[in-house]
């Protein structure tokens, strides 16, 4: 699967409280959560993104609370993929479980760069700079969950048996 979009850049330690503030967690409606995505750190988030855009961040993306509302808000807002130097572990598993593509890469990416991501072959191309980088594949077990379309579907398919 190939994903294409422009980069929306953030720094290190982007926590789930700024991805979706707790004051909005009185709902589990994905559309309502998406409406407030990144609001506390980037009030212009919605005006600058187009469907398919890619978040590119520093280390420890998604640290803090276990709220699955965070990857859900990002996914529903129309972000196709998150690239980070590293992910906090609960965000990482939540993204896998709900089918939000995430990539660990320390490729140099600047705001607005046009990116293309080949998930199957692990290739990230920065079309603006012409740079190409490989990223590691998920462990086979997680690849299975992703290909099934998330954990609940993978479980129905027997991943826990």
């Amino acid at each position, binding site marked *: 699967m190939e994903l294409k979009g422009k980069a929306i850049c953030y720094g290190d*330690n982007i*926590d789930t*409280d*700024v991805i979706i*503030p*707790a*004051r909005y*967690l*009185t*709902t*589990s409606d994905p559309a309502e959560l998406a409406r407030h995505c990144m609001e*506390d*750190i980037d009030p212009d988030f919605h005006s600058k993104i187009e469907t398919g855009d890619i978040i590119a961040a520093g*280390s*420890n993306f998604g*640290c*803090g*609370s*276990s*709220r*699955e*509302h965070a990857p*859900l808000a990002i996914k529903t807002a129309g972000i196709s993929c998150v690239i980070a130097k*590293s992910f*906090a*572990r*609960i965000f990482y*598993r*939540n993204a896998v*479980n*709900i089918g939000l593509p995430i990539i660990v890469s320390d490729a140099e990416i600047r705001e607005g760069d046009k990116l293309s991501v080949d998930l199957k072959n692990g290739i990230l191309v920065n079309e603006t700079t012409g740079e190409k980088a490989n990223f590691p594949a998920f*462990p*086979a*077990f*997680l690849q299975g*969950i992703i290909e099934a379309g*998330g*954990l*609940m579907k993978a*479980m*129905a398919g027997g*991943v*826990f048996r």
Partner: protein
Amino acid sequence: MSMTMTQKILAAHCGTDSVRAGDMIVADCDLVLGNDITAPVAVNEFEKCGCGRVFDGGKIALVMDHFTPNKDIMAAEQVKKVRDFATDMKVKNYFDVGEMGVEHALLPERGMVTAGDLVIGADSHTCTYGALGAFSTGVGSTDMAAAMASGKVWLRVPEAISAVLTGKPGPYVSGKDVILHLIKQIGVDGALYQSLEFSGDGVAALTVDDRLCICNMAIEAGGKNGIFPVDEQTLAYLKEHGAKEPKVYSADADAKYARTITMDLSKLKPIVAFPHLPENGRTFDEIGEVKIDQAVIGSCTNGRLSDLRDAAKVFKGRKVAKGVRAIIIPATQKIWMDAMHEGLFDIFVEAGCAVSTPTCGPCLGGHMGILARGERCVATTNRNFVGRMGDTQSEVYLSSAAVAAASAVMGKLAAPDMLD
């Protein structure tokens, strides 16, 4: 093959003799936890999958603690959804107002976790129970839904950091100071994907409450879990709280660690984590005059009876500074009642504090003490991220209960030994 304590518990829960770091496993859960924010999402997922019934109504805990007593109509609807689910699925351990407490204080208090257990919870601070010699870790709502249906969770076997504690902590130094010093040393992602395994002669000098607080914040260093060896104190605690028979695991003598950190507890001083990361710890020789507007003493990190006693020692015969709101939140109904019987409430109220019913409340900016633009709060909670307790221009300073109480009295960040 040599294993860490965590790896031994994981191996025992996936029916194998040994596991090694990096293995992907499917493990059996002894307890699956969720709260009023994460469980509604899990219930949605559970209902979509058409599983029909939960794997074991006795091994699920649903604790309505974050926005309770329900702060608004939407919060009430979320709790109702979980309450209906608990009734339909015959989940025994559903805790609502009147018997609930902040989940990670409540479960150990009710003997629901024992040494050797594997616990997952859709709440990042589920790592708290490592203090009791269990493997416990935070997961998401979909993990929770899958585990409620199957009793199972996927895990990547972690490597570990060995944290060797020596010496005895001095006056006014608690578990909170230990973990804030450790996070300052290794950073908020210093233990990413790893276990923090504690050992050393310093362990005996830490109470079970100290250890619960330390493991609670393992996640603030990015850790998968924190875990303490089981000793006489642990066994006495488990017995006192009616926990089931413990299974004691210990790390092999030749277990491999990613790295070893040593910490002399006798050298530690009270510490405050400055905004906006828990790694921004400063001791009082590095803290100038920082005026505060509010103090919060409570949460899954420091809302236990020992924390309230530490605060009461400071507040006794003193007053909260003019212009400061001091909010005390006992973490469970039992802690609330014990504190009342000990006379702590008289001390708090005479000092000018407000005493709340148990709730996570202000810790996550839910309710019961939200900050306005530009306001500062010293809190015994666990996170000081941007906007965590209110306006994005407000600030949270993390400390022990003793420091939070002293700061409330002085009207600025202060250690107890700075009082008259």
